[in-house]
């Protein structure tokens, strides 16, 4: 698995953990280095103070040539040392650079020349002899560290009486170093135990909004936008918060685009229906006119008997009905229409009032005075549009009768636009019904009203389209409303 395929939910905690572990390693390494340096410094300081102490204590025995006293002096630190003390021997050299006394006389008998001292004792002894100061040597021997220290034994007047040499056990020193390293390393364990889970938790917390975002966006397309919005992390000022804001805006844009596409689809569908209807209407109307002319001719100029007359009458009524239906399908422009006036709205009210009363519907009528101002809109078409909508509303309100069943009619005017809203009480219409509301012959609840309603709204849509307006249906559970907007050229100044 490549690193870039790994989830941020793992990557961030892993990165934080790695940083913590790395930090611990660096800190531990530093501490270990420090501990090692400290151990060396401690040993050197101990060696120096012990060398000085011994040098001072050995002054008199050397002056008095008191071998036994010197032996007791150098035996004391060895006898009193702790188990972990690396000090393993002391050698005192006299001014002639011979062994005056050694703590291990069997190894270094009295009067042994300094030249035969083993390393590193010989080295420090030579250096202490040459520069007359304390010397400390820490070297690497074949089996481990080799340690030694040496310092001069001086008389009160500074005369060199001899040299005291300390021999250290490198193995014990190495063991002490190992113990120090282990101590420091163990010290870092609780820190790691505490910090790694904390870091992991913090990392998960940090990566969570990002993961949430990824999950939410992965649902775009298969889940409804509202669900995707719920899944998105909260908005905020940080990068993820801003990303969330952007995603929300993007989702809103997508929703608008989807709505637009739906509208366009509905419009295209209706337009196609319109073209088909018009074609069919023309195809039907031509032979229909011929057939009606033929029947008329036969009735007027032929001598049909009673049966034929009845049959011809039946045919003529049937064909008239077909013509009416086809005519309703195909709303044609009437160029002779007068302009819409305030009188037209009053006429509409007069026409619909008996209808509403017969259906026991309350009628709310509100036509803004501004709307009654003379417009360039064709009166016939607007009246047909409004009447159709009113009749449709009355039928819909009656189909679901309640106590306060009502129909409302609102007309408002704004600059360049006339709005007509027709509403009726009734149950909410499902979205799929609303989507196909204006298509002809859609199935509706009532048997009889279906035909009428379907064609009525289809006619309304056609008129609206011809007038360059919009028509929309909405339903909120209490009211179902159809809103029509029609572009109105600004009224011409009087005269």
């Amino acid at each position: 698995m490549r690193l870039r395929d790994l989830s941020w939910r793992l990557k961030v905690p892993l990165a934080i953990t790695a940083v913590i572990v790395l930090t611990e390693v660096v800190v531990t390494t530093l501490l270990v280095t420090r501990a090692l340096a400290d151990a060396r410094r401690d040993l050197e300081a101990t060696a120096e103070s012990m060398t000085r102490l011994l040098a001072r204590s050995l002054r008199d025995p050397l002056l008095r040539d008191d071998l036994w006293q010197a032996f007791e002096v150098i035996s004391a630190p060895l006898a009193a040392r702790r188990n972990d003390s690396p000090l393993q021997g002391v050698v005192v050299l006299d001014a002639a650079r011979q062994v005056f006394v050694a703590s291990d006389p069997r190894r270094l008998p009295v009067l042994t020349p300094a030249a035969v001292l083993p390393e590193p004792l010989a080295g420090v002894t030579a250096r202490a002899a040459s520069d007359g100061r304390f010397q400390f040597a820490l070297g690497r021997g074949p089996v481990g560290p080799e340690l030694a220290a040496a310092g001069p034994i001086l008389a009160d007047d500074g005369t060199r009486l001899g040299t005291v040499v300390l021999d250290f056990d490198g193995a014990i020193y190495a063991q002490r170093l190992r113990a120090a390293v282990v101590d420091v390393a163990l010290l870092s364990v609780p820190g790691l135990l505490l910090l790694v889970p904390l870091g992991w938790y913090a990392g998960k917390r940090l990566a969570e909004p990002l993961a949430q975002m990824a999950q939410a966006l992965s649902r775009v397309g298969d889940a409804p936008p509202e669900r995707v919005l719920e899944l998105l992390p909260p908005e905020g000022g940080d990068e993820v918060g801003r990303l969330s804001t952007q995603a929300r805006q993007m989702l809103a844009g997508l929703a608008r685009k989807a709505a637009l596409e739906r509208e366009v689809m509905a419009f295209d569908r209706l337009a196609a229906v319109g073209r088909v209807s018009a074609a069919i209407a023309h195809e039907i109307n031509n032979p229909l006119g011929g057939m009606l002319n033929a029947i008329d001719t036969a009735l007027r100029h032929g001598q049909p008997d009673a049966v034929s007359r009845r049959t011809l009458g039946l045919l003529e009524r049937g064909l008239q009905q077909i013509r009416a239906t086809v005519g309703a399908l195909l709303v044609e422009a009437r160029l002779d229409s007068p302009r819409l006036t305030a009188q037209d709205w009053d006429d509409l009210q007069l026409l619909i009032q008996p209808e509403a009363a017969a259906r026991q519907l309350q009628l709310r009528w509100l036509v803004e005075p501004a709307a009654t101002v003379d417009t360039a809109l064709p009166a016939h078409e607007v009246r047909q549009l409004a009447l159709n909508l009113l009749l449709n509303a009355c039928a819909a309100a009656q189909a679901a009768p309640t106590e306060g069943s009502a129909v409302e009619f609102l007309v408002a005017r704004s600059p360049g636009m006339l709005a007509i809203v027709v509403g009726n009480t009734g149950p909410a219409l499902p979205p799929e019904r609303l989507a196909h509301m204006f298509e002809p012959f859609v199935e509706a609840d009532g048997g009889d009203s279906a035909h009428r309603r379907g064609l009525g709204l289809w006619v309304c849509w056609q008129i609206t389209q011809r007038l360059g307006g919009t028509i929309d249906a909405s339903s909120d559970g209490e009211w179902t409303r159809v809103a029509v907007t029609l572009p109105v050229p600004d009224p011409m100044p009087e005269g």
Partner: protein
Amino acid sequence: MTRPDRLVQPLRPRNRRAVMALGAAACLGCALPPRSARAVAPLRFGTTPVFLNEQIALLERWQLHLERQLGRPLLFVQRGSYREIVDMLLGDAVEAAWLCGHPFVLHEAKLAVIAVPRYQGEPLYRSHLIVPSVDSTTRHVLDLRGRVFAYSDPLSNSGYLIPRAEIAAGGGRPASFFRRTFFTFSHRKVVEAVRAGLADGGAVDGYVWDTMAAQQPRSVEGLRVAWRSAPHGFPPVVARRSWAGADAQRLGRALREMSDTASGREILQRLNIDGFDEPRVGQFESIRALQRSAESGGG
């Protein structure tokens, strides 16, 4: 030709006050424990490493015992060498001391023996030449020519005079016979020095060696006695003649009577001696002879 080793002077006026004080203390109340005699100047008793004198608990018990017997306080005094104790004896800083026979014969004009320990039935002891056990060849100090040798004390008979006399008798010059010599100022430390390998051999008081071997066997591990000298007079308890008298007699009696009491016998057992005897005539003659030969032979 013998000289009396025991010459105790009669009570001198300068000690009268102490005796009077002692008598007064005795009169004031027999009920008072002997320790109440603290007001009396203590009898100062010097000790030297002729015995294992670093056993403080033993010295305390011995001190208590003697104080009870003498009816006066007693103070054991220790110094780093025989010389210091001898100087204190001669300088009136101590009244009596358990000393080696050699410093006694050197200063016998001023010192008197008041008691001599009896060791293994005799008031005699020997000098031991000790060497590491690994040295299986040394039979005599002459075998250690050119080696490192540990003496105990320059005034010691067994730890200095005898080995040097042996070297001189063998035709050597004691001063240059060894490559290196040193003093430890204690027989026990001679043992330690040889044991540590610091010296290839050492001369010690045979009694001290035997006591160490008996009481602290580990302290003599790895060592062997390569040679034993002829017997010599055991290191005596001496008093300075200027002090000798009733007090000295009393001290001598108290020492001799230690074997009569349980506490005294216990102390004697710890000291690893049978008891204290009166000095005998000619007891230290052999040491005098060694001393004379050393003076004449040069060493």
